[in-house]
Structure formats: C-alpha cells, structure tokens
C-alpha cells in the first residue's frame, strides 16, 4: 500500500478527509456582500468563487447600478451598497446556505481582497428566497 507523501499518484485517498461544517443544511441562508474597485473585478471574484471553491451559491449577482431590484432585499445593507455603487465600485452579492457562509465570506474577504465584505444575519431559507 502507498502512503500520503510519496507523490500525487501514490496518495491513498482512503486516508483523506474533507471536513464539512456540522451545521444542518437547507434551514438558514445568509447573504454575503462584497465591494470591489469596479464591476469587472466583482465578476472576476464571482468566477473565482464558482471555479475554485466548494461553496455553491444559491444566488449570485454583480450589481453595477443602484436601481437594481436586488437592493430592496438587502434592507439595512442597501445604504452601504448604494454608497459603493455611487463611488463607481462593483458589488457582488451571493446567497449561500448558512453552513457555507464562513467559507464564502473568507474567500471574498481574504482571498479576493475586496474593499469590504459584509454578511447579513442568517434568516430562514424560505424567507431569504423571497417566497416566505
């Protein structure tokens, strides 16, 4: 039997474990908002999230205008987003399962070097869908 450390071809995958959060899925959702210097960078960050992260956003959108209907759903955070858009920034909004929110926020906050990243409080998944 080959063991971990002898090169990729020889890795004994039975010894590898991918740790997933223990939180139940499908119960709560959270929205992560990130601002970038321009909309292109926000699109780039979204691409990075989709291609290189195990997090699958339930909804994802890059805002470039303060007239977007998605702003209404952000309630208290809408003012922060409007301010960023008025400054010419691109804003990425993703909705994820609460169990994935740590990973999503970490990626947008630390790995993509956003101008700022905020998370709305967790809400029941159905209410976040706008179909509550």
């Amino acid at each position, binding site marked *: 039997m080959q063991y971990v450390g002898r090169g990729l071809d020889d890795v004994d995958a039975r010894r590898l474990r991918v740790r997933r*959060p*223990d*939180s*139940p899925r*499908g*119960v*709560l959702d*959270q929205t*992560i908002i990130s601002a970038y210097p321009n909309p292109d960078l926000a699109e780039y960050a979204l691409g990075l999230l989709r291609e290189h992260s195990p997090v699958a956003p339930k909804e994802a959108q890059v805002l470039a205008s303060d007239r977007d209907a998605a702003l209404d759903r952000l309630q*208290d*955070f809408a003012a922060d987003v409007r301010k960023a858009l008025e400054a010419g920034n691109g804003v990425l909004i993703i909705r994820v399962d*609460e*169990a994935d*929110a*740590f*990973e999503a*926020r*970490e990626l947008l*906050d*630390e*790995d993509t*070097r956003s101008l*700022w*990243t*905020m*998370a*709305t*409080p*967790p*809400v*029941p*998944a*159905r*209410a976040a869908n706008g179909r*509550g």
Partner: protein
Amino acid sequence: MAEADIRARRAAHKRLTFKEILRAVGPGVITGGADNDPAGIATYSIVGATAGFGQNWLLLLSTPMLIVVQQISAKVANVTKTDLATLLRTTYGARIATPAVLLMVIANVITMGADLLAMAAALQLLTGVKFVFWVVPLAGLMAYVTIFTEYKVFSKYLLWLVAVFATYILAAFLARPNWGDVLRNTLIPHMSFTPAYLLGAVALLGTTITPYLFFWQASGEVEERRGVDGMALRNIDISAGMIWSNITAFFIIVSTGAVLYSHHAEIRTAADAARALEPFAGPYATVLFATGIIGAGLLAIPVLASSAAFGVAGLAGWRRGLGRHAQNAPQFYVVIGLSFLVAMELAVGAVDPIKALFYSQVLDGVIAPVLIVLMILLTSNRKLMGDYVNGLPTKVIGWSAAAAMIVADIALAYQIATKGLPG
C-alpha cells in the same frame, strides 16, 4: 407558518439532551483551566497575599460578566462569520478599529513578555540556572511551535500540565482558612479606596475579563466554522469553562490568603508564590508550582501571539488563521514572529518578573472596558445580528461589566494621581 421557518426555529431553539450537555461541558472545563495564564496565577497570588480574602467578592461578581462577554464574542463571530477586528473595521471604520485593536496587541505583547519571564523564573526554580538564560530559548521554542506545528494538537497535551493548578483547591482546604471569613468576603462587597487595593482590583478584573480571550474566542469560532446552530451548546461550554476558571482563581486567592496574608508574607519571587501550595505538596510545592506555570505559559503564549496576529490581519484584510500554512498567510505569521521578538526583548530587559506579571494585568484591566463597550454595541446592532441581537439580561450584565471596570480604572487613576503608586 412555512415548514422551513418551523425547521429554522427548531434548529435555533432545540431542546438539549443531558448527554449533549455533558459532552459540551467536558472540553470547556479543561479549557477554562487553561485560561489562567502565568500572569493570571501571579495576579491572583498577589491579590491573596496583599488583600487576603478581601477581593473575593470581585471574583464572584465578575463570573457572570466573564461568561456574557465570552458568549457575545462567540455569538458575533457565528452570526457575522468573521473575527472581531474585521468586524470593527467594516462596522466602525479604521479610525475606531485601529486604536481598539492596537491596544489589545500592545497588552498581549506585554503579557507575553511577562509570561515568558514567569516561565523562565519557574525553570530557575527547577534547575537553579538564572531566569535570564531561559528567556531566548523559551521564546524560540514557542515561536517555532506556534508557526510551524499544529497548536491544537500540542495544546491537548499541555492541558494536563495546567491541571496541577486544581491542587490549589486541596491546598486551600488543608491551609485551614477561616471559612466564615472567606464566605463573608465572597458574598458581601466592600471597597477600600487605597491605591494598593484598587491596583489589585483592576488587575484582578483585567486578568479575569481579559481582552485577548475576546479575540481568541471569536477567531476560534471562525476557524472551527461553528455557525449559529450549535450556539446553545457553545454557551453551555463557555459557561462551564469560565466558571471552572474562576473556581480555580478563587482557591488560589484563598490558599495564598491563608498561607501568606495571615503571616504578613509578601510575594517577591516565584518561590514565594509557590509557598501557597505547601499545605498540599509540602517540600514539592515549588516543583508543582513551576510545572503548572510552565504548562500555563506554553498554552497561553501562542494564544496571545495568535490573537495579536488575528487582530492586525483582520484590520489589514490579510489572509489569516492557524489552519493556514505559513506560505499561504505570510503577513499573519510575520506578526506572530514579531510579537515573539518584542516580547522576548521586553522579558530580557525586565528585572522583576512578579511586578511585570502583575502590571501587565493592570494594563489589561484598563483596556478591557473599551473593547467590551465596542462588543456590546456590535452585538446590540440589529442590522448586523438580526434575530440574534442581545437580549436584555445580556445587555445588563455586559454594560455592568464595562461600568465596573471603568469605575475601578477611574478610581485607581485618581488615587495614583493624588497618593502615588504603592511601593
């Protein structure tokens, strides 16, 4: 009500089984024992030796405050999914976040220096080699452990070394204090407006409700990816740990009060502090005390350095986390390395380990209320916390903690300004 809403509410307010509670309490009790770092042990010993049981009531008063402050540190991280420094920056801006975090970093580095001195003094007790020769090897070893090894694995074994402080409980009973006196001083608050008493009070509150623990708790929740689902169990775990931490502190004070205060003996060296364990350990008190101090230092110093690095990296928006490899979060690990260097420099330059340990906790007592106020404001903010916003009991206890510490700080500043520092 929609089915998803019902499931969400059940997840947030589910009834816990006795087995679940027992399982949650275990690690908390062990961690609580580890919360008493060398500076804490020295502070409790000095308070016991200089004021007897006279400040026990502060320990009782601070227990619910400590629990609430730690619980809100955990809650804010689990709801917002980030650490305290990042949250302060994104909510209040750099003007407020930077000084708040830098105060914590300064207090941490000074406490690291004092803890290094305590460990070196403990090694001097065991080997007879002067403490200054131990500082650099100790700092090097711990910097290596923090940066290049898995602290979590390492800490599991060290917890057993720190368990020796539980022997203070036996030592306190064997020292035969006047228990009526102990109870009266624990249950009935009384103040003495002298610089020495107030200095002890500020240090005792600062070492109990200590700033680095807020940052460590929040960063730990983020690293573990706990989330809001397990918060009820988490709160039980935190409560058990903090109660155990303060029980240990209580018996350290009772034991040193009975052994040293009653004989008007002062604590000038680590060997003096170790005498409080003599009723239990006799001639082995020094070995037991030194072993505990070394274990406590090995556990606490990496936490202090990491909390400082979490703070600075959160302010700057750098990659951070002990789960990340050094190459993946270079600035985070550079801050850890720098804090070890500065702490080592402070420790080498210091002449009196016991005074350094005590005054580092006075500094914590001055800084803590600023951070507590900011944390209560964060966790009372409905925009950030939604349905998880602080309830009335949490607000009352949290604000009381900040108020008690601010009053003690102001009284101390006034007394020092008018009467000077005690000798």
